[in-house]
């Protein structure tokens, strides 16, 4: 229900009230002008109209509330959401839980990865074969040593102790 319609209904109600009051006042002075039956009918109409206006006002309030809720929902939908990974980590952090501890297989694979990286750095050259071996070892390793080993290899290259034999991605 629009505000304009509500205003019109309000004006109509005010006119009826005014008309009734005027009618009653004139009835006091001239009893024959409004019969008792006609007066009751006008009051019933007035009551009905008043109810209608109250209902319209209630509907209007609901519409305004609904519009506010829709706007809030739309704003929430367009807000930048954190990436799933960050959200997961935040949830883990908040709950106080730790990530799963590495398995014995992962620890053994991590040992092999570190040994392999040490050998590659000692050779001074990162070949295509080394990259393939490192890829396999990385996949089997535990996450902590995986990250530490990659960064160790990068540091060795930045310090010119290790040089790749061909261009391309790290692995």
């Amino acid at each position: 229900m629009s505000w304009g319609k509500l205003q019109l209904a309000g004006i109509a109600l005010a006119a009826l009230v005014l008309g009734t009051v005027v009618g009653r006042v004139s009835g006091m002075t001239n009893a024959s002008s409004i019969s008792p039956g006609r007066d009751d009918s006008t009051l019933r109409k007035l009551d009905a109209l008043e109810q209608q206006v109250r209902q319209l006002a209630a509907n209007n309030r609901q519409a305004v509330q609904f519009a506010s809720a829709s706007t809030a929902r739309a704003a929430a939908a367009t807000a930048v959401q954190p990436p799933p990974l960050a959200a997961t980590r935040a949830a883990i952090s908040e709950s106080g839980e730790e990530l799963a501890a590495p398995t014995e297989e992962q620890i053994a694979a991590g040992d092999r990865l570190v040994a392999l990286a040490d050998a590659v750095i000692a050779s001074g050259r990162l070949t295509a074969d080394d990259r393939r071996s490192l890829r396999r070892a990385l996949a089997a390793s535990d996450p902590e040593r995986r990250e530490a080993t990659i960064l160790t290899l990068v540091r060795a290259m930045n310090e010119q102790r290790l040089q790749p034999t061909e261009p391309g991605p790290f692995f």
Partner: protein
Amino acid sequence: MQDGTLRRLLSVGIATAVLGAASWSVAGNRWPYPLSIDVSPGGWVEGQLGTVRNSADTSKYIGCSIDSYSWGSGVYCYAFDGANYKGCWHPDTRSNFSRMAMAVQALDGDALLQFVPAADGSCDMIIVNQASHWEPKQP
């Protein structure tokens, strides 16, 4: 001076002016940006992909990759100037991984790339710039 010679000189002058104006009107700024690797700690690595690719030295290169594996992801930027290699690996365990990945995703064959490896080998900074003044890669 004879009339014929004067007329010929005049036509050559007009043709030169027209050609000059035409070439001036199509030329924007063209700024080469060769590869530079500062090997000192915290040193920048930078180069425009077209300039590096088109340089006479065929050993030089610069680039980035976004690596996604079953065990995780990382952004890797690297460069080699024929003598020095420098790179940085930014794993997805770092809080600002998504920002680094966003920069690398903007990289194309004609972009300027700048990055700074941190002391631990991760990336302190990645800048990708696209602009009209960079030269395209030649075959």
